[in-house]
């Protein structure tokens, strides 16, 4: 079964590569017209935020929908030189990076067991994580807050990182298992004949071969943690520990009259997630295509 899946995937990949080699063509004008309208709708609000940051408050009051005239960079300079922004940026980075690394690491380990070990309870293990998709953070947030409070982890980044990992695990495991299951048994046997233990096989063969899945799940975990709002809202009360989403909200209520600064703060806080996603976008689609097939 897994063999078939892998062959199908490589076959379709070969097909794609062939198509790419023959070169992308220009689409019809209608295609581009539709695409342009679509893009305009998608990015206009984002551009409003970014460009609004280059205006002054009086410009915004006179005509909220206008163009910067003249362009001012003081708002961005003000945010970029404020220690608050960098502290929250640092908190977000710590939270998102550790969530991503630990989630993917733990998920790879458990997915490896589910995909490649035969033992009683394997299906139970898989069902456990599949059922985890049914337990969204919203439902558990109140008791989770109490648990974190009892562990003494409120106002501590660890207090949001641990739950973030736990809630990112189900989706990560569900996406990774098919990748690991698709690695041919023959490879494992060959490695075993060459004297590699199953753990050695894990590091030398499984990790490189499941890289597309790892990247996909890693990006999703990173973006989820970077953008998370509900969990930090409950766990972090002290502005020194705020992540950027809380920071944006606090900044916009503190500076509610300083719209231009709010817009600058907001646009700077979205850069890392956007950057990350743009770099790996192609891989995300490729990584998911193995998982959603069933």
């Amino acid at each position, binding site marked *: 079964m897994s063999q078939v899946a892998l062959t199908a995937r490589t076959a379709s990949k070969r097909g*794609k590569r062939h198509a790419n080699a023959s070169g992308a063509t220009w689409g019809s004008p209608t295609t581009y017209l539709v695409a342009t309208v679509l893009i305009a709708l998608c990015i206009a609000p984002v551009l409003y935020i970014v460009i609004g940051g280059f205006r002054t408050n009086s410009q915004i009051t006179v005509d909220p929908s206008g163009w910067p005239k003249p362009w001012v960079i003081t708002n961005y300079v003000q945010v970029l030189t404020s220690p608050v922004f960098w502290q929250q940026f640092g908190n977000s980075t710590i939270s998102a990076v550790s969530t991503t690394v630990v989630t993917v690491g733990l998920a790879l*380990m458990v997915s490896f067991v589910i995909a490649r070990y035969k033992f009683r309870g394997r299906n139970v293990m898989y069902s456990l*994580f599949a059922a985890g998709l049914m337990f969204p953070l919203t439902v558990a947030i109140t*008791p989770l807050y109490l648990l974190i409070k009892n562990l003494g982890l409120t106002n501590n980044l660890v207090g949001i990182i641990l739950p973030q990992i736990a809630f990112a*695990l189900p989706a990560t495991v569900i996406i990774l298992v098919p990748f690991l299951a698709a690695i041919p048994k023959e490879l494992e046997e060959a490695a075993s004949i060459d004297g590699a233990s199953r753990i050695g096989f894990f590091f030398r063969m499984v990790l490189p071969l499941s890289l597309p899945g790892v990247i996909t799940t890693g990006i999703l975990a990173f973006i989820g943690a970077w953008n998370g709002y509900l969990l930090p809202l409950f766990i972090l009360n002290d502005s020194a520990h705020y992540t950027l989403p809380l920071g944006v909200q606090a900044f916009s209520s503190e500076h509610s009259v300083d719209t231009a600064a709010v817009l600058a703060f*907001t646009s700077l806080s979205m850069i890392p997630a956007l950057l990350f996603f743009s770099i790996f976008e192609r891989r995300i689609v490729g990584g*998911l295509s193995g998982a959603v097939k069933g």
Partner: protein
Amino acid sequence: MSDSAEVLTPRSSGSQPARDGAHRAPSRADRPGRARADWRQRLEIVLLAGPAIIVFLTFVIFPVFMAAYYGFFKWKGFGVPTNFVGLQNYFTIFTDQNFLDALKHNAFIVVLSLVMQGPAAIAFALLLNQNIRGRSVIRVLIFIPYVISEVIVGTGWGLMLQYQGAVNTLLTNIGLGAFKVDWIADPNIAIWTLMVIISWKYIGFAVILMLAGIQGIPDELYEAAAIDGASYWQIQRWITLPLIGPTIRVWAFLSIIGSMQLFDLVYIIWGQYVASTAGTSTMATYMVREGRLAGNYGYGNAVGVAIFVISLVIALTYQRFVLRRDTEGALTGDSGKKHK
């Protein structure tokens, strides 16, 4: 356990000499070696699967059970809950007009999300799946709303949609001043405003899934159809659409669950109190307002459980319904015709 030992046999016969050589263990009968391999496998399973399962059980499953427990108490969150009130919290929830309104809003959001995002997402995915120049740029740009956080979306749209904000000014400037409305506070309009923002924000995710589904379809099918002289639209209608059926169902499932849990956008744009008067409150904003902010942790937990049970019932019903439809389709048209 016996089956695991059996499975191991072909492997261990191959790797046994190497391992024995390394450990300089005296090679004896087959039995201890097999037992050791079995034991080793168990150890590996525990070491590899243990950490993830512990973290998952501690921070996902345990809190949900605690919510069920706390939900039976009237409790302010300090010390051990002692004021057991049985099902009273649940009676309160389902007789509170605010919660019922929120539930109604959630239902509205579930249905409209499917109707508004589904067809559009499939169309966009087809558009983006064409091998045209500039495709990768178009893709990245279309996914931007999905990638930026709810807080940013909420802050940006909230500013734009103020009565004196960019949208209304723009409408006036292009001569459509008659359409100027209070997008956020008007109870007749607010929920539609929310739907537009939700669709804008989450359609990128639907498009990603659809694209992944489309790319999972073997190229051979398209080649065969092209040889048979099928047109582009025929190919999409008779090959792509049926074959991304599973993807569509997965997306619909995720979308329903997401709509039931909606919190961030409403909370940020409409705040804690305006949401109910503007008609956009959701079960989750109700939970945060009545639980955490009011300090009624017993009640807040009960609301969480209620949301979970409602979502679960809907999800299971959906799965049943979809599963039944799938089997009917698989068992030829006969059974379907009989029902008619």
